[in-house]
């Protein structure tokens, strides 16, 4: 009987995973089939022509990466610090309202962030449509998600470890650096990946902030079209843009894969350095 139940659960788990992977392969297969024809060196190195139907996506790739760099450069330090503060330092009466705020913000639709970014960064701070505005808006959008996942990772570390570290005479900063952060690293990476995924996938917020211009950006104060905005425009607004849209989607997927591997590698090395030191 026990054996039976065991086998049943195993089968269910295998089946469910197969289903998930199957659906994923179906979707990915479709994107690859439609997009692979577009993909070559010229597609990556040329500027778009004829509203994106022809030519490549080089300026769009550059803009996308710049927006992401700005967003991460702002969101990661801020997010980490806030998560550390919430989990390790903050008094309950302070942490609670902050947490409530974060939860609420995680539920704000991205287009509202877009309008917020437009009002604050583009207009009030005079940055106009620019990679700055787009990156900063994305940072605002990523922050709640990143803080929440990071904090949950830190909180999941057993308090024994904190007391153990204190008993060994470690300062809390040292305990954080050597014990808590490494222990929470998988959760932090997962949070980071989810945030990057959301940032790269974001369309609505970026149309209003980093804009629509598909020229190669000369500086961070230029308007630059993000890859997802490009895909949306090609598939929804430009007739005959589907092939280029799928091609761009394929590039975006490969890009995410690359960023993921880098992040995973970094975490693993970070973990190793901590645990063997």
């Amino acid at each position, binding site marked *: 009987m026990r054996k039976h139940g065991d086998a049943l659960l195993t089968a269910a788990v295998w089946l469910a995973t197969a289903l998930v992977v199957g659906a994923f392969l179906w979707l990915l297969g479709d994107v690859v089939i439609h997009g692979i024809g577009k993909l070559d060196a010229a597609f990556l190195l040329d500027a778009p022509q004829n509203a994106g139907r022809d030519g490549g996506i080089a300026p769009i790739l550059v803009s996308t990466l710049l927006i992401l760099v700005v967003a991460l450069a702002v969101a990661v330090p801020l997010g980490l610090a806030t998560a550390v503060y919430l989990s390790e330092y903050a008094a309950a009466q302070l942490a609670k309202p902050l947490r409530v705020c974060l939860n609420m913000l995680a539920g704000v639709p991205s287009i509202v962030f877009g309008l917020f970014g437009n009002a604050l960064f583009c207009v009030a701070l005079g940055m106009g449509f620019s990679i*700055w505005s787009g990156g900063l808006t994305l940072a605002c959008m990523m922050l709640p998600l990143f803080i929440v996942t990071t904090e949950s990772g830190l909180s999941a570390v057993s308090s024994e470890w904190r007391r153990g570290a204190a008993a060994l005479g470690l300062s809390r900063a040292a305990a954080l650096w050597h014990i808590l952060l490494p222990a929470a690293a998988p959760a932090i990476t997962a949070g980071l990946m989810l945030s990057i995924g959301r940032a790269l996938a974001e369309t609505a917020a970026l*149309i*209003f902030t980093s804009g629509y211009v598909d020229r190669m950006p*000369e500086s961070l104060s230029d308007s630059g079209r993000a890859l997802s905005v490009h895909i949306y425009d090609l598939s*929804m607004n430009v*007739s*005959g843009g589907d092939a280029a849209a799928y091609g761009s989607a394929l590039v975006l997927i490969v890009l995410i894969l690359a960023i993921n591997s880098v992040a995973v590698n970094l975490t693993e090395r970070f973990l190793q350095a901590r645990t063997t030191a």
Partner: protein
Amino acid sequence: MQMISMEKKWCAAVCVGLSLCASAWAGGNKLVLTGSSTIAPLALEIGKRFEQQNPGVRVDVQTGGSTRGVNDARTGLADIGMASRAMKSDEAQVLVAHRIAMDGIGIILHQKNPVKNLSDEQIKQIYTGQIGNWREVGGEDRKITVVNKAEGRSTLELFLHHFQLNNPDIRAHVVIGDNQQGIKTVAGNVGAIGYVSIGTAEYEQTHGTPIQLLPMAGVGASVANVREGKFPLSRPLNLLTKGTPTGLAKRFIEFAQSAAVDDLVTAQYFVPLAR
């Protein structure tokens, strides 16, 4: 240690960015266009050619809808607004419209739908839900899927105005945002009826998308008929300025209205001006 070096890199990137920023914010020879998502791809292409012919000039095109084009032109946020419709009377008091192309709106069905003709009255009845099956207009026994545009779209306003309909009376089954979504929806559903830009539909038709354009009031839905002004359902694509344009904006608008961009207009499946 990895973390530290990563953060250092970010700091460096931010510093470089800041210095780049300072240099670019000083620039001046820039034209900003905002508005209609229909016009945006065309304006972008015209802008590129204009930049080529006028070194040092930059044309930034931002999308976001006709209403936004009107508002931004009014508040001065944009040098030139874009609107894919005729101006309303209150707008005409502040803004000047400059027509750069025409666009026709045509009714589309799935290619496999045997219905080849619908009268205005029939279209009206289909959209208000009085006719719910293709059998009633001489087609197969199939449920009609009514595809309508979302509130605020200039195509919707034009369609409603032409057929003397009120939006709350329309019984839609699918509400769409942009043109291509409409074409994809109709192409994926044999019983669907929708209305989209004629140039776009013609392009999709010749490239194997299973849709057909219906004639309206006996006039074939074709780019040629729109150009000659015969087709009943058409709209202007306008550039808007606050008052009479001067300087760079004036030069750009003159360029956008000239025959030098007709090939770009055609390439975006719109109808060049009849001069």
